[in-house]
């Protein structure tokens, strides 16, 4: 915390929930959250660079420990995709699922860093007053992923069924091809197409954001005195341990939904 702030609960929380925003034009839209972009970019660079470095010398003989770890991960993802998507998954869907899982997992895992310690580091080492280290608690990040998947979904729908087939499906499923039910079908599909990216991104965002808020509340409690410190610390430990589950689970769910949506796009009704 910077010294010029008066430490009140609302200023504490506001401070932690303010993005490191960089304006690039007029209007609210034309700004970049540098914290989200830098952290997610660095995580992507380091994680996937590391994976690339390990698998560059992949042997089909006895694997080293590093290679075995990557293989476990890859086979886990491949098994999940195999169960949902029927087709040539190795070319795009399975690597996509791996990317989503690993990247989201790493971005979620930034939540494990102790917020106030990191806030001090960002301020005094990097000179950034506002810095949110968890990219997935930024709705821009989760929407970016969900909308990318959404566009891929539409792309694959059109690629597999053709533009005519896709439009036909918009109007003729799920209730049938009778012209009387066309409006109902279209409305149904419209709601589905809107709700998919919303639920996809908001589920991840909500979980990570709520996790961050609870850490902040516990941090606030810890500042109220000895009892608060003890309970805040204890509950903080409990929440952190529970958060390990949430971090992995949300990454897994995000990956599974990605695969399910894309698999659905490949199927004709």
């Amino acid at each position, binding site marked *: 915390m910077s010294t010029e702030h008066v430490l009140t609960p609302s200023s504490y929380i506001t401070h932690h929930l303010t993005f490191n925003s960089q304006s690039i034009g007029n209007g609210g839209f034309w700004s970049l959250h540098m914290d989200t972009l830098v952290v997610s970019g660095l995580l992507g660079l380091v994680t996937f660079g590391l*994976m690339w470095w390990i698998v560059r010398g992949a042997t089909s003989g006895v694997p080293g420990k590093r*290679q075995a770890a*990557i293989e476990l991960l890859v086979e886990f993802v491949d098994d999940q995709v195999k169960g949902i998507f029927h087709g040539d998954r190795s070319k795009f869907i399975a690597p*996509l699922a791996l*990317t989503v899982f690993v990247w989201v997992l790493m971005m979620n895992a930034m939540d494990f860093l102790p917020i106030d310690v990191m806030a001090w580091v960002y301020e005094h080492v990097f000179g950034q007053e506002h810095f949110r280290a968890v*990219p997935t608690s*930024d709705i821009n*990040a989760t929407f*970016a992923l969900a909308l990318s998947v959404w566009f891929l979904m539409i792309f694959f729908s059109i690629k597999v069924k053709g533009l005519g087939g896709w439009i036909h499906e918009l109007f003729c499923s799920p209730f049938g091809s009778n012209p009387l039910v066309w409006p109902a079908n279209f409305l149904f599909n419209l709601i589905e197409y809107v709700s998919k990216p919303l639920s996809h991104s908001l589920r991840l965002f909500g979980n990570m954001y709520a996790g961050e808020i609870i850490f902040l509340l516990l941090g606030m409690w810890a500042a109220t005195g000895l009892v608060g410190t003890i309970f805040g610390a204890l509950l903080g430990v409990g929440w952190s341990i529970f958060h390990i589950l949430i971090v992995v689970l949300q990454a897994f769910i995000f990956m599974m939904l990605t695969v399910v949506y894309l698999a659905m796009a490949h199927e004709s009704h």
Partner: protein
Amino acid sequence: MDITFTLIAQALTFAILIWFTAKFVWPPVMSAIENRQKTIADGLAAAERGKHDLDLAAKRSAELLREAKEKAADILAAGDKRASEIIEAAKLQAKVEADRIIAGATAEIEQEAFRAKEQLRSQVSAIALAGAAKILGREVDSKAHNDLLDKLVAEM
């Protein structure tokens, strides 16, 4: 909670990461895994085949052993038979030989006896003549009694 250009920048990063994973991370791992799976499957198949071959070889060797034992038993039996045959033949031959020798010996003995008899017979007349001369006290004219003596010799 505002949507900003961050979204698009983030989507761009995402696209690059997908491309990177699909091009550089996924293929080498998958090919390594698939190659290993193939190697393991081949190894298992080879082991299965080896086991099968071993079974066959064991069966074959047992068969060969049994055949060899049978053959050995046959050879032993044939050998025994041949030996007894040879012994029988030898016995028969020996008997024939012995009979022949005995017959020869008998004939020789008879011949010898006959010769002795002849010799004896030829001397009997002289002994008889000498005996008679002693009894008569005088010389017997052998010429005069030759007929008589010959008759006597012939009777003996």
